[in-house]
């Protein structure tokens, strides 16, 4: 089977008249091109929203207002959140899905290549709408990425623009998910049964279902905001018979599964990396699949734990507290399985493995703070404080983002045909992991001591930990430039990568040449 792929690898550019330059990228229907587009888009968004984060941290270096006006500060926190979630993390994972799902299941491309092109090219439109809102009268949205009314009803024209941008990004996600589900269910190589699929494919299959289930809910909730703002409806206005808290219920019915949309693909990537560098099969494959599915199902019945402070009745508080605590069980199973995979392996510590190990350890810290926050009475003390900021950054930075870094280092040789610079990769890893902890760990203490989140200025007793966090932010932020250098260097040249890049690598993607030719698996491989 790999012979067929090889034979096509060298002359595949010959038999279609490919547009070149910009038109190649605008009109491409190739899953590898589209994967590349998604990943570059995500990287640009990461740097933009990261710059906003550095501005936020610079303002918070000292008490008092130094750099930005409070209203602009709120614009920065809101846009940082929206862009990191919808512009950086989600598109990065979709980029991985585009590159890797067909390669890992032995399919020639995605099921709907033209829709694939469309779902990517919607994103820059939405991104442009978000960024341009900074230039509108009144500035960008400042009501928080959670868009709670009635505050969100008060804003100017950029609020409507943001709602439309969210609609467009949701559309892109739904189309991407339809594509991924159809590809996985219909285009697997003969013999690749569901329970033989690589775990990355499994996690994306489940993630795509979560997206299809929840994105319409988000679209509905922001549409209600739009009509409340412009057409005189009163969904969220008590004076007209509505209820502001209803928005929170609808939003978090989307919002909590969204949390798992941001982390399940990360579980998948880490589950590919750890067995490779432990040179040992993944421990508990079946229980990993079941744990992922249970987390996804549970994610639909925990949403109100984001709302313990709105004054839910005791019965609701108890239900959502217990259901949330239950999520710790399947999550624990995953962590135990990763540790058991490493146990008695023959480990080496290339950069992808370093990021995967940091993921397991630091994501678990985020999981533990999540368990603390699940306890309703404790959450009532910590809700809307820096403790929550620390919690979700441990999950999303050392969780989602670190898995993305690990995945890029892991598959970059396959994509570019060149090994990345291992020394620079290790510098990037160590500076990131140290900077990230200096940045986010003190925030736990700030939250416990009583510092609310989303404030541009703070009381004097919070000064020291804020200064430490800001120092960490600049270490973490600037060390990402190393990552950019590593990626650019690997694209330009470097040691040639073997087909099976890593000694312990298993799976179909390692049977095609490096770099993976433009068309792969035009004849399906057969698994025994």
């Amino acid at each position, binding site marked *: 089977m790999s012979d067929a792929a090889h034979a096509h690898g060298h002359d595949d550019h010959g038999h279609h008249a490919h547009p070149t330059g910009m038109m190649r990228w605008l009109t491409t229907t190739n899953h590898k091109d589209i994967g590349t587009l998604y990943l570059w888009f995500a990287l640009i968004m990461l740097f933009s929203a990261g710059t906003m984060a550095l501005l936020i941290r610079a303002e918070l270096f000292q008490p008092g*207002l130094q750099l930005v006006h*409070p209203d602009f500060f709120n614009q920065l926190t809101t846009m940082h959140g929206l862009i990191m979630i919808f512009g950086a993390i989600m598109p990065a994972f979709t980029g991985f899905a585009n590159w890797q799902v067909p390669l890992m299941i032995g399919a020639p491309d995605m099921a709907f290549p033209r829709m694939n092109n469309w779902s990517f090219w919607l994103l820059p439109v939405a991104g442009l709408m978000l960024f341009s809102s900074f230039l509108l009268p009144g*500035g960008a949205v400042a009501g928080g990425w959670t868009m709670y009314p009635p505050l969100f009803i008060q804003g100017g024209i950029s609020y409507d623009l943001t709602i439309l941008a969210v609609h467009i990004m949701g559309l892109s996600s739904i189309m991407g998910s339809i594509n991924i589900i159809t590809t996985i269910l219909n285009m697997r190589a003969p013999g690749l049964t569901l329970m033989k699929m690589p775990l990355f494919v499994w996690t994306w299959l489940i993630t795509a279902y979560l997206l299809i289930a929840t994105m319409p809910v988000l679209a509905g909730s922001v549409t209600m905001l739009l009509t409340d703002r412009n057409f005189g409806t009163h969904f969220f206005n008590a004076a007209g018979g509505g209820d502001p808290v209803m928005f929170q219920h609808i939003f978090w019915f989307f919002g909590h599964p969204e949390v798992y949309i941001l982390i399940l693909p990360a579980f998948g990537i880490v589950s590919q990396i750890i067995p490779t560098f432990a040179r040992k099969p993944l421990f508990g494959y079946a229980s990993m699949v079941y744990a992922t599915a249970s987390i996804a199902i549970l994610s639909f019945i925990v949403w109100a734990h984001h709302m313990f402070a709105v004054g839910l009745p005791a019965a609701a508080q108890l239900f959502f507290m217990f259901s949330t605590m239950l999520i710790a069980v399947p999550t624990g199973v995953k962590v135990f399985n990763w*540790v058991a995979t490493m146990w008695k392996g023959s480990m080496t510590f290339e950069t992808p493995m370093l990021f995967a190990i940091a993921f397991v350890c630091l994501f678990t810290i985020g999981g533990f703070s999540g368990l603390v926050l699940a306890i309703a009475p*404790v959450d009532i003390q910590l809700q809307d404080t820096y403790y929550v900021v620390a919690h979700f950054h441990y999950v999303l930075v050392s969780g989602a983002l670190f898995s993305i870094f690990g995945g890029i280092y892991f598959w970059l040789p396959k994509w570019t045909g060149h090994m990345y610079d291992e020394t620079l990769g290790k510098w990037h890893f160590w500076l990131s992991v140290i900077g990230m902890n200096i940045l986010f760990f003190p925030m736990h203490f700030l939250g416990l001591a009583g510092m609310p989140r989303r*404030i541009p200025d703070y009381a004097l007793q919070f000064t020291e930990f804020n200064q430490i966090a800001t120092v960490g932010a600049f270490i973490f932020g600037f060390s990402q430039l190393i990552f950019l250098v590593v990626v650019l260097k690997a694209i330009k040249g470097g040691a040639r990568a073997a087909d099976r890049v890593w000694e312990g690598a298993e799976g179909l993607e390692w049977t095609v040449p490096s770099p993976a030719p433009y068309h792969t698996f035009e004849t399906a491989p057969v698994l025994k």
Partner: protein
Amino acid sequence: MKSMWQRAGTMGAAWAAWAVSRPALAEYAVNLQPPASRVAQDVFQLHNLIMLVVLGIFVVVFGTMFYSLLKHRKSLGHQAANFHENTTVEIIWTVIPFIILMGMAYPAAKVVIDMKDTSNPDMTVKITGYQWKWGYDYLNDGISFYSSLATPRDQIEGAAAKDEHYLLEVDEPMVVPIGKRVRLLITANDVIHSWWMPAFGVKQDAIPGFIRDTWFKADKIGTYRGQCAELCGKDHGFMPIVVNVVSEEDYKAWVAKKKGAASTAAADNGKAFDVAELVARGEKVFSANCAACHQANGMGLPGTFPALNGSKVATGPLAGHLQVVLNGRPGTAMAAFGKQLSDADIAAVVTYERNAWNNKMGDAAQPADVAAARGAATEAAAPAAQ
């Protein structure tokens, strides 16, 4: 090159000297604030318990992982084993966490039920969140007042040294007697706020159009400080909460003093003032209620908050100006101040706005005009309601 390093060294030393010499503000708190109520005490202990369990699990799991990272490496010649499942082990590490969680859930549930029990209060206070201040109505004692940030603007902007309770000080603190069960009815006037007093273990969102209740019983005399905990717009970071817990006698004295102040204010509503008196009083009302958005110089913030200097409202007919201040502009951040301010204060602030900056209107609103405008609004609303 060398001089650059020397300079960096000098700067570093200066910074270190400054950091060491800072006053004893640096309380490196690494846990929740000291509790001053039973609920806060329960939450404190619950958090400590969970942290102990979590730390234990962390040490066991990652102790195992780091042992493996040290011993099971290829560079030491360790050969990979080939096991990849073990049903017994997998069942054990599903069941044990479940049991640990049940052990945590039981004490947590007891605290939830206690926190939600607002029955049999000794007194009830209604708290209303506004952009950006708090209003307190003592339903048993008939006292009402507003509580705004007391930190001067120049401290925030770095023009003056910051005092000890920077951003955590208010003009009118809430006062409660020690050892009394205080029921709080919490709501908001404009957007969602959240009333949070860490030392009492109370955080309740203030939701416009709805009243939610909670309670506390403070068991230590002292001054306690908190902040609004729900993003509520531009000055979300500048609406602190201060509660003074006092003895029963001190509380009674405070109630008497507040009632005296209220009757003086009521008497003002019946008086007529000259323009200079109104402008002087209005400037104070303006800086406490209006300057956050419209700015002290009356120029607002372009695109977000309109300027009053030269505005059509402030230089137009007096009746229209009064209507905007009394009833607000629904759907915007402009609140209806009719319910928040007395006739005399509204008359003063409207007169100030009409005569300050370049608005040299020369006219004045009297408390009687405000009362008349309120009456007109009620009459206009009455037929619509039928």
